[in-house]
């Protein structure tokens, strides 16, 4: 019996399931994917809803929602080996990111207590990093995209994922 326990402990020590980032934050379900007509309408709706989410906290919610959405989109597209679309979605997720910090800074300037929002953001970023690290393992470092009537492009997926991780790690 003692030997079995010892063996299990050794197994755990030899093959540690180390996860650097873990968070209870829940990312949204994947929404519609690029290529469909409804996706174009959805983009329009997304742009219009930016105005619905007015205010500092409103903008925080909107940009966090967008950065979450496009991260999930990138993850799903990478899983289906749609590397170009996934790559674009990941860049889009990063694009919304500075706006989150900007809206928080604005809220602070307007004397709003941002402590709860910072906790939410921290949790979200941990979940993002967790997702991105898994993505990094599951996707090729680079991908040569060969469009039909244009020059081929090399997608530096690994660098893009690493940059996305770094952006999120630098959240104050």
């Amino acid at each position: 019996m003692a030997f079995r326990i010892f063996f299990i402990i050794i197994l755990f020590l030899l093959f540690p399931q180390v996860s650097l980032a873990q968070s209870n934050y829940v990312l949204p379900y994947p929404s519609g994917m690029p290529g469909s007509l409804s996706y174009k309408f959805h983009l329009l709706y997304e742009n219009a809803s930016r105005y619905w989410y007015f205010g500092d906290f409103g903008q925080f919610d909107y940009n966090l929602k967008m950065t979450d959405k496009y991260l999930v989109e990138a993850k799903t597209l990478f899983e289906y080996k749609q590397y170009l679309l996934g790559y674009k979605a990941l860049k889009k997720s990063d694009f919304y990111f500075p706006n989150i910090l900007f809206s928080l800074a604005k809220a602070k300037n307007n004397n709003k207590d941002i402590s709860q929002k910072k906790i939410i953001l921290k949790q979200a970023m941990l979940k993002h990093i967790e997702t991105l690290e898994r993505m990094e393992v599951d996707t090729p470092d680079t991908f040569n995209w060969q469009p039909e009537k244009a020059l081929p492009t090399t997608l530096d997926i690994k660098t893009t994922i690493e940059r996305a991780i770094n952006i999120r790690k630098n959240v104050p």
Partner: protein
Amino acid sequence: MKKLIILLYSAFLFLFTIFSYLFVDPNLSYLKDFYSGFAFSNRLLTTISYTTAILIFFIFYGIFIYLGVKKKINLKEIFVLLSITAAILFFSYPAMLSYDIFNYIATSKVLFFYQENPYVVMPIEFVGDPLLAFTHAANKIALYGPFWILLTGMPYLLGFGNFIVTLFSFKLFIVIFYFLTVFLVWKLSKKIIPLILFALNPLVIIETLVSGHNDIVMIFLALLSFFLLAKKKIFLGTIFFILSILIKYSTILLIPVFLYVVWRLIKNKGIDWEKVYFSSSLLMLVAFLLSPIREEIYPWYAIWFISFSFLVPNKKILLYTSIAFSFSLLLRYVPYMFTGTYMGQTPFMKEIISFIPPALVFLYYVIKKKI
């Protein structure tokens, strides 16, 4: 005799106003000097006092209706009575029976003070805001229509950042709409009885002048829409009808009646307004009965249908059922007031109290009609 009745009624309203302050929330720091905790620690006595007060309210209501029927009260006297009622109850504690007025203020603050969209951001997100200590629906996004939220900008800004001033500014705002609705009831009916039935109805008085519910604003706009349609002003009537829906959405059920009236107007055909109000009352009764789908039946929702049913007092079954509902719904507060919990037997008791009296009245008149 009439003067004595008015004097006794005024004294009773004054006592009721004092009674309302026994319900001051312990977390409402702005009124800490008025806090006694009495209503929460002496539940039996409070419940008996409240039930007695409701009975007295209805005795006076009966007297006023009697005076109206016997033509012993004129328009001027009714106006004096209403002014006294509003002037005294304006000073009552608005969260005696419901905390909605705090929700109105909190929602308004999200938009006009924090400049955030109340349909996206909840009051609870503003950590440290003093309103959070006593606002009961702070964890919800705006529950009301956009026009209501816009309108609340007026009382909110008139509060100049002072909570007590804001609170009474909201009450004043509702009092104004109460008088506007009363005026419309008079204009639409041109009779004293509907005016007394509506304006001095204890449920209308308590839920509007004490608790400050916004249902009166929605009903005012719906009645104004019908009033304008009666004057053949279709465009303005449509605008106010839409605005009424944008207060609390319930008047959306009046769309068939509204379209019927517009169609008759376009076709230059006569309109049987009694039928219009009767149908409106029934549709609003449906909205009232469907309200558990969203949450639960709240006493102030009765304003939706009683305001129309009192416009057609000759529809006896509807009239007496409406009065019975006014009475039973005010007693709906009793189980919680007595037990202090929303669990256990309270929900069941609330339903029994709310529906048995109107159901009995309804059955009595149906059987009487058949005999």
